[in-house]
């Protein structure tokens, strides 16, 4: 029941969102939790072990801020960012590693938040689109996406921008071919690719001008 219900982060202002999902989660957890807790006991001394459904305290560093929060082992970073931390720039798309909408940086490298357990992100630096702005001031890659009109509907854009940031951190001055390869983990169903590639090139210049 739990997995088919409440699709992760069904969206901003989702009418049946958090409270029902929270309820379902707890009901599911109670029944399964009992059986496994006993088995888990033995290894506890040295092994970091979290029983199913148990909210567990983790410390996540997101955009330089430390958050202490309760998560379940099965919750993805995408879910926790959106539903627990209210950071909705990171978008749910396929939730199977096939679209790139959920791209975040982990220790500076682009990864899919939908295929990352929140508990696995502990001890690592997570950067989301929110972390690429300075207050209300857009960052270099965002600026370049606006300048080059690199979006239509905009749904894929946060993921594209974060992927571009990851690419430019590794390769500050990419060729067009490197941009195509580097951005190949992000789909745009509006087909804004040509503008996106141009924006990434422009962003590499803007970043240099800004001394990064």
């Amino acid at each position, binding site marked *: 029941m*739990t*997995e088919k*219900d*409440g*699709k*992760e982060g069904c969206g901003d202002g989702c009418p049946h969102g958090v409270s029902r*999902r929270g309820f379902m*989660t707890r009901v*599911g*957890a109670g029944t*399964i*939790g009992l059986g*496994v807790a006993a*088995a*888990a006991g033995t*290894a506890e001394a*040295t*092994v*970091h*072990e*979290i*029983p*199913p*459904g148990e909210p567990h305290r983790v410390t996540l560093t997101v955009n330089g801020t430390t958050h202490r929060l309760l998560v*379940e*082992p*099965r*919750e*993805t970073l995408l*879910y926790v960012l959106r539903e627990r931390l209210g950071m909705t720039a990171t978008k749910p798309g396929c*939730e*199977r*590693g*096939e679209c*790139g909408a959920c*791209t975040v940086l*982990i220790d500076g*490298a*682009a*990864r*899919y938040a*939908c*295929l*990352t*357990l929140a*508990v*696995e992100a502990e001890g690592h630096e997570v950067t989301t689109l929110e972390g690429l702005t300075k207050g209300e001031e857009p960052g270099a890659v965002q600026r370049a996406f606006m300048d080059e009109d690199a979006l239509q509907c905009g749904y894929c854009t946060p993921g594209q921008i974060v*992927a571009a940031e*990851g*690419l430019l951190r590794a390769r500050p001055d990419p060729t067009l071919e490197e941009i*195509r*390869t*580097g*951005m*190949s*983990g992000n789909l745009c169903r509006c087909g804004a690719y040509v503008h996106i590639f141009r924006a990434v090139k422009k962003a590499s210049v803007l970043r240099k001008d800004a001394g990064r």
Partner: protein
Amino acid sequence: MISSFTYARPKTLQEAVELLAKPGARAHAGGTDLLGCLRDEVFSAEKVVSLSGLSELKTIVPSPLGLHVGALTTLAQVASYKPISGMYRALAEGAAAAASPQLRNQGTLGGNLCQRPRCWYFRGEFSCLRKGGETCYAYDGENQYHSLFGPGPCFIVHPSDTASPLVALEAKFRIAGPAGTRTVDAEAFFVLPDAEVQKENVLKAGEILTEVFLPAQAGLLSTYRKVRSRGAWDFALAGAAVALVVAGGKVAKARVVLSGVAPVPWRAKKAEEALTGKALDPAVIRAAAEAATAGAQPMSGNAYKVDLLRGAVEEALRAIA
């Protein structure tokens, strides 16, 4: 959402092995395949045992005899690490051709080799042979992405782009388990469905692939060619890893290992024979490419792969020549 599971992050290999020996436990390396399978209920996990605390599995150690690559090395690292791209180019090219940049940043070499197949019946809501059911739905069904080689009764293709290069490079896999450690040849790691239809490799309960060893070989040249329906993010329709030892202008030793066309990395032994002892001229290359398709048994929807395969082998050999 994914069904509930217990999560454990052991700090030592010994603990990880003990945890994984229990029924219902699954290893988590990068999680990119595991979480997809759990979400789609391809299988379930009572306990997810994260390997991320095992730093000894993250190292790459050169030795005079070769290169020891830890199973938790990411595909991005495998693709860009100079000693790999220099000496074992087919492996670097295979890793670079897998999945997408984000998945390569996260997915590990060990996970890539142990990932589950992509047959859409297996990934969908079909209780087929590989899931313990009674029948193979692909045999009489939609099989355009299925195998050309192999004995049946399941017709998956092995999804990994690093597996064929590793068999071509004569890699050895180190495995830790409840009974201690053992080493198997890359080729012997993968199992055909007539021997074992619900598994793709020899790993037993509690066993962890810990290291891939790449032996040093003088005069070794290798490359990997992958054909797919779009330039990124797609599994191989057909592919070929070629590793040759060339001495005095002649091929002293050849391995031609096909991907995307069989349930395991498939050695094209006829192609290997067609190369051995010869100079790599165009006629020899063409003959070897043709020989690589010998014994192919297309199904109703995948005969097109035979041509792709011939082309992939020819391109790989030309790139080396």
